[in-house]
């Protein structure tokens, strides 16, 4: 019997091409398995083969979503795979977006089952959980060993067209799909049981979870820019030289507020970047690429804006829990209000 064919997508890092310095690499195709694909191949066993591994740099993908997707599709298609696997991306945001984008395109264009995996706070999860089966992984590659059997189990079921059970049973992230089933007990009994559990302070999981939407209504626009005080906030990891508050280079647990009083531009003698999620060479040379102080000072002098706050607020965005980012925001908005800030420019790498 011919083997089932898998094509596997990985990024620059997992292909061994390199980290940030290789993140701009264009799509490539390699025959056979490589990197994390070797562990998948072993788990899937002798009825399966990884016919090819396609690789793309995270920055190239992120900056050229449509082109990268089209190039990769043209590389994947000739292998006529039975299953497409991307990642897992763990907590790497750009990689997660790439995995989700290419999976969705392969499913749509080639009509074959697809699988990917991510940590639940990866931004790719909320973008693609409704479209794809995203296997729940840990936040780093150390979670590969646990993820492999889940990929194998689900991959096999998809290839053979077997029924996929609920997310908790199979180990993927909830997709927001409801499936009807016949319960042993009728509703009133189940309701009483839940109530009793609740009264006892035990866990009482609802049968009907509601989707959570955290959206904020857009504010009214600025009407008088020439008299508005503007503050700069960034997730680009710019800090004073020496990083006095030890802001982490990834998965930040804190933010900083630093003075730019009297400065005409962001001087590399004064500032550096600690962000661990992009190639720091350019920004090290010119921090204005993240904090556009030079042009904002010009605009302040020209009267385009009223005034620039004499500080900026900064943290590192990569790998940072959304819960932490929310807490930073909640914490510093009081200061923005107090200081009469009328608008904020928030830059992200």
């Amino acid at each position, binding site marked *: 019997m011919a083997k089932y064919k898998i094509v596997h997508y990985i990024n620059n890092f997992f292909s061994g091409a390199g980290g*940030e310095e290789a*993140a701009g690499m264009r799509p490539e195709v390699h025959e056979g398995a490589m990197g994390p694909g070797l562990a998948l191949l072993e788990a899937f066993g002798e009825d399966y083969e990884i016919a090819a591994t396609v690789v793309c740099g*995270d*920055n190239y993908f*992120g*900056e050229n*979503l449509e082109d990268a997707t089209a190039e990769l599709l043209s590389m994947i298609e000739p292998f006529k795979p039975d299953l497409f696997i991307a990642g897992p991306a763990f907590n790497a*945001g*750009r990689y997660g*977006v790439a995995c989700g984008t290419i999976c969705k395109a392969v499913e749509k264009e080639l009509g074959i089952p697809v699988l990917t995996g991510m940590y639940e706070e990866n*931004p790719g999860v*909320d*973008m693609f959980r409704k479209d794809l089966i995203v296997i729940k992984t840990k936040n780093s590659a150390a979670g590969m060993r646990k993820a492999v059997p889940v990929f194998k189990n689900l991959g096999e079921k998809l290839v053979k067209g077997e029924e996929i059970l609920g997310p908790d049973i199979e180990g993927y992230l909830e997709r927001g799909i409801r499936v009807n089933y016949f319960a042993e007990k009728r509703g009133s009994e189940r309701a009483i049981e839940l109530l009793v559990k609740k009264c006892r302070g035990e866990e009482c999981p609802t049968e009907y979870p509601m989707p959570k939407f*955290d959206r*904020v209504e*857009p*504010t*009214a*626009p*600025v*009407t008088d*820019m020439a008299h508005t005080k503007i503050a700069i*906030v960034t*997730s680009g990891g710019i800090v004073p030289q020496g990083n006095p508050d030890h802001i982490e280079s990834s998965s930040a647990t804190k933010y900083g507020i630093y003075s730019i009083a009297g400065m005409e531009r962001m001087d590399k003698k004064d500032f550096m970047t600690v962000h661990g999620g*992009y*190639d720091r*060479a*350019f*920004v090290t040379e*010119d921090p*204005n*690429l*993240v904090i*556009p102080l*030079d*042009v*904002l000072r*010009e*605009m302040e002098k020209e009267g*385009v*804006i009223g005034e620039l706050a004499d500080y900026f607020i900064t943290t590192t965005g990569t790998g940072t829990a*959304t819960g932490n*980012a*929310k807490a*930073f*925001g*909640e914490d*510093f*908005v009081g200061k*923005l*209000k107090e200081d009469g*800030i*009328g*608008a*904020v*420019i*928030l*830059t*992200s*790498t």
Partner: protein
Amino acid sequence: MVKEIERVGIPVVHICTVVPISKTIGANRIVPAIGIPYPLGDPTKSAEQSKKIRRELVERGLKALETPVSEQTVFE
């Protein structure tokens, strides 16, 4: 952070490279930036050109802040 700023009523523009991420988190005024390792400017060009690009992006950001929006809007 974008949402918490907007939640207290301060208009905010998110200048960022990966627009889909910004949309997912819920920014309402989004300006696409140049590249991941250099969002505001282009160091592969001359210093003057790079700064000009930065000025244009900031101007677009200010325009976004001055534009009424009722839903998530990308200012290309």
